[in-house]
Structures are given as structure tokens and as C-alpha cells.
């Protein structure tokens, strides 16, 4: 164990999760995250979960437009004179 002065690498990896998935890290940061993920199943599981979660929320949130709404919208067009 360190004397507590070194930052926790998993906490650091957790901080990089969102920008990593958003492709918003620098090349150096990305390499750092990937190096850690290669050796850390704790973080790897949580990264995989995040990917699944985003996909899940995205699918769950979809509600198709009521079929009659499009006709109502079309009726709002201003007639040509």
C-alpha cells in the first residue's frame, strides 16, 4: 500500500469514463485509461456496464409519434395563394 499520497487509479479511471465513451480524451489520457482497463476487471466491468446503460436508456426513452400528429402538423402549412 502506498502512504495515501498517490491518487487511486480506479478513481482516476472512473473520472475518465464519460469522456472516454464520448471520445473526448486526449490520446495520452485515452492510452492511460486503456492501460488501466487492461489490468483492472473492476473498472472494465463498470465501463462495459456504462456502454450497455447508455444503449438501454436510449432505447427505453423512444416513444414513437402518435400516427395522427403528422396530419395535424401538415395541416398547419400556410396555403399557397
Amino acid at each position, binding site marked *: 500500500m502506498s502512504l495515501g499520497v498517490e491518487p487511486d487509479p480506479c*478513481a482516476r479511471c*472512473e*473520472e475518465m*469514463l*464519460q469522456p472516454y465513451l464520448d471520445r*473526448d480524451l486526449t490520446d495520452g489520457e485515452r492510452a492511460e485509461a486503456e492501460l488501466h482497463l487492461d489490468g483492472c476487471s473492476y473498472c472494465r*466491468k*463498470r465501463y*462495459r*456496464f*456504462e456502454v*450497455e*446503460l*447508455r*444503449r*438501454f*436508456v*436510449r*432505447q*427505453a*426513452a*423512444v*416513444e*414513437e*409519434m*402518435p400516427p395522427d*400528429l*403528422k396530419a*395535424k*402538423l*401538415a395541416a*398547419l*402549412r*400556410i396555403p*399557397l395563394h
Partner: protein
Amino acid sequence: MGETTPEAEPRKLAEEARDRVRFEEEALDLADQVYRVARRLVSTREEAEDLMQETYARAFRAWRSFQPGTNLRAWLLRILTNLNIDRGRRIQRAPDTQPLEEGDYFLYNRLEEAGREPSSDEDRVVERLSQDDAVAALSAVPHDFRDVIVLVDIGDFSYADAAQILEIPIGTVMSRLHRGRRILKQELAEKAVGSV
């Protein structure tokens, strides 16, 4: 010079009519996609339908201010979000001081603690959470954060588009997105396994 010939005027009118019809058709073709975003910006289907109708009525009146070749879906959503904000959003705005949200591993950790940790089969993950939980959790996220999540994570807009639509700096989009997703995970944890 500068005088329009008698023949030029009808031609100009015909061109304008053609441009307008094209605009209207393109806008209507995007209605499904705009609705998906609108539906999650407001609480009920009725509100989403009203907002769509107000948006399209305004868009059809203001069609000349759209620049052809730019992103029409973003243009429509800019009108829509402005109208939504103008409505006073009925529900309270996000308080100035948000409780400090948990980290990004929070939801996984809570599911794990509750003995519902995702199995090694990644596809099973979604089965730990219900669709209703996800919808309820999303609607519980304060508006300022939810707007950004809905535009970026559901509407597939870039940070730059979301910034333009909401008329906020791109850095604010990013910080609200990050915090909003964490708040969403806290809400999901509460819905899925109860509060701590």
C-alpha cells in the same frame, strides 16, 4: 436596372412557392425524429403534441429564416426548446444548489450491493432495470440537465449542436451532460433498488 420585368415577378413567386413547399416537406419528414426528442423534454404526451404543433406552426411562418444546407432538425429543435422554456416549463426549475451527485460507478455499485450485479454476460445488464424505471428516472432529472441528455444521448446531437439549440456555451453542455448522467444514475438506482 433594378426594375423587375412583368414576367420576372410571377417567376420569383413560383420559385418561392417551390422553396417553401420543399422546406415544409423536409420539416414534416423530420417530425418523427423531432417528436422523439420533444417527448422526453416534457412530461406528458399531450404536452409533447402541443409543443410539436406550436413548433411547426412557427417554423412554417418563419421558413425564410432557415438557411438551406444547414441542419434543419437542429433548427426545429431550437424553436421547440425556446417555446418549451417560454412556457415556463410548468414544473420547477432546477434549484441552484444540486446535491453533489455520486460518481460514475455508483449505479453498478448499488446494483452489486443489492445482489443484482450484472452477470458476466453483458447483454443481461439491461434486464436488471426496467424500461419504466428508465423513463421515470429520466423525467426526474432536473430540466437543465435533462435537456442536454435528451439532445445528445437520445437525439444524437453533437455538443456543438446542443450548445446552439440551447443557446449555452459548449463547456456548459459538457458539464451538464456529465452531471446529468450521474444524476440519472442516482435516480435509476433509487427506482431499481430503493434509496440508500
